[in-house]
């Protein structure tokens, strides 16, 4: 099956500095494929290159090199946009229009007739929870969360096959975030491809089939969450009750860490190479009771933090080639990373 999104060595350089312009690489030979029907999480810290990638895919900026296809068509193909939805980061619309007027305007650009535009607008405003009493108000009177909901509605106007969401949870309260998660799952169930960027890892863990982690403009990891995290199992957690201290002391060499969680009840962290069954047998023989035994895996957050730190170390050691330019360029790049504004 053809990929819904195919990105091939996409690179974007900006020229920074006022007088003596220097190149600054915001995205470095990024390659990815997203299959139809996937919910794909595009993760990374602020300034990692997530928004740059999305802007390249939407042709809001042009690549320095590399190419990409959406639904088998090259970037910039106006016809392909008929089947694409896009929510920008912190979206901003014409604040003199009402939510209804805005959506109807966009619907007309998609070629809907007046009646269809009104019907589609009403359906989507229902779907994102904008009540009838607010639809006639100008957007300048909307809260940030409501604008975000309108943004999600406009991204779904054309019943798109592929939906790009840049930080879709941004500005939403817990209820709003729950609604958006449910909406993304509905879109997945309808067979649509969802590509969303986020730095909120819990969202990715809850929603995504696959993720990619970017840092400093480069791909740090890509794969199924289960694959990424399965390799990161780093031990076992054994919770036991009715344990006598002298038994615990005897087993201490085999235990990495022991934490008392109640009277005679302990959470024991065992190294990955240990044999938890043998330790458990000894404990049970000494009168202890098993409460639970689980593999200790990295959370996505653990993985993310470690991988991003590794990528930054590599970049500092010059592994990144011209990615982080030397001298002033590097300092500017680091500052941009910290501020996280230009590219993300």
């Amino acid at each position, binding site marked *: 099956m053809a990929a819904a999104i195919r990105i091939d060595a996409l690179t974007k350089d900006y020229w920074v500095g006022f007088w003596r312009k220097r190149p600054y690489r915001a995205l470095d030979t990024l390659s990815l494929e997203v299959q139809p029907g996937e919910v794909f999480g595009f993760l990374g810290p602020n300034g990692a290159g997530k928004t740059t990638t999305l802007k390249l895919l939407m042709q809001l900026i042009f690549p320095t090199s590399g190419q990409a296809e959406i639904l088998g068509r090259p970037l910039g193909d106006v016809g392909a946009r008929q089947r694409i939805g896009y929510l920008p980061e912190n979206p901003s619309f*014409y604040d003199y229009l009402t939510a209804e007027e805005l959506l109807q305007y966009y619907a007309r650009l998609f070629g809907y007739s007046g009646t269809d535009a009104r019907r589609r607008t009403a359906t989507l405003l229902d779907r994102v929870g904008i009540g009838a009493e607010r639809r006639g108000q100008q957007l300048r009177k909307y809260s940030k969360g409501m604008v975000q909901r309108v943004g999600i509605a406009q991204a779904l106007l054309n019943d798109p096959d592929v939906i790009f969401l840049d930080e879709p949870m941004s500005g939403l309260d817990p209820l709003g975030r729950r609604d958006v998660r449910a909406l993304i799952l509905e879109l997945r169930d309808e067979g649509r491809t969802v590509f969303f960027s986020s730095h909120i890892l819990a969202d990715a863990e809850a929603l995504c089939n696959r993720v990619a982690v970017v840092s400093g403009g480069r791909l740090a990891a890509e794969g199924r969450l289960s694959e990424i995290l399965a390799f990161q199992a780093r031990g076992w957690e054994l919770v036991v009750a009715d344990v006598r201290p002298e038994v615990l002391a005897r087993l201490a060499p085999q235990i990495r860490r022991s934490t008392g969680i109640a009277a005679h009840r302990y959470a024991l962290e065992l190294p990955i190479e240990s044999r938890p069954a043998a330790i458990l047998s000894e404990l049970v023989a000494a009168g202890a009771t098993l409460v639970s035994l689980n593999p200790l895996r990295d959370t996505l957050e653990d993985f993310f933090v470690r991988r991003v730190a590794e990528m930054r170390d590599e970049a500092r050691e010059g592994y990144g080639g011209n990615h982080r330019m030397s001298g002033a360029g590097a300092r500017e790049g680091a500052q941009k990373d910290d501020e996280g504004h230009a590219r993300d």
Partner: protein
Amino acid sequence: MRAISWIAVNVFKESVRDRVPYSLVLFAVLLMGASYLIGQLTAGQDVKIIKDLGLAAIAIFGLFIAIFIGIGLVSKEVERRSIYPLLAKPISRPQFIVGKYAGLVLTLAANVAVMTLALYAVLAYLTYTESPEFRDAWDAPGVDPRMLKAIVLIFVELMVVTAIALLFSTFSTPILAAALTFGLYVAGHFNTDLRNFDQVVESRPAVLLARAAYHVLPDLSAFDVKTEVVHGLPVTFGYIGTTLAYGLAYITALILTSVVIFSRRDFK
């Protein structure tokens, strides 16, 4: 074409919501107030002065609308980031530029039409109230359809100014775009001086430079036939046709340049 028309309608809607029509109320009040005062001060010349004042006011009000909305046509979209979701829709960048331009021209057309009606209404009132002896002494009739020639040329001039503002709006900030557009407007009205530069300067390079500037800068003085119309002097249809063709060619060149610049622009 469909997308262009919807973009144009949205520009028109924005100008209405931004209270641009208030300028029309100001125009009407100014015109009525002036006609009353002039009627008190002059004898027999009031219609000519009202025509002068009315045509100048149409040009100036239109200029303000053309510059102050024109400079924000693209830059405002970029600044408030409303261009991101818009360009992700099935429209091309040239369609966006042409739609934006058409929208402002539509706004200008509506404004010029209303101001023209207001001017004719005031002139009709003055003609009706004036004595026949004074009316016979006028260079041209009070309600003179030939004034439309001047108004059509003012409108085309405003279209040129709008295209200039749009061009600057595609790559610079609103303040810089306003300054550059106003600068070109002023230069455009003194363009004929550049053509005759050799009569006042002997330096050959300076004359060549002035001649080049004359051909590149818009000749906006060609659109100004207010004096001829007010004094009942002839303005031929041949002249109007040539001037319109010049204006439309200049507008086309400006829009094509805007499209080329905008089509390559990154929205960081």
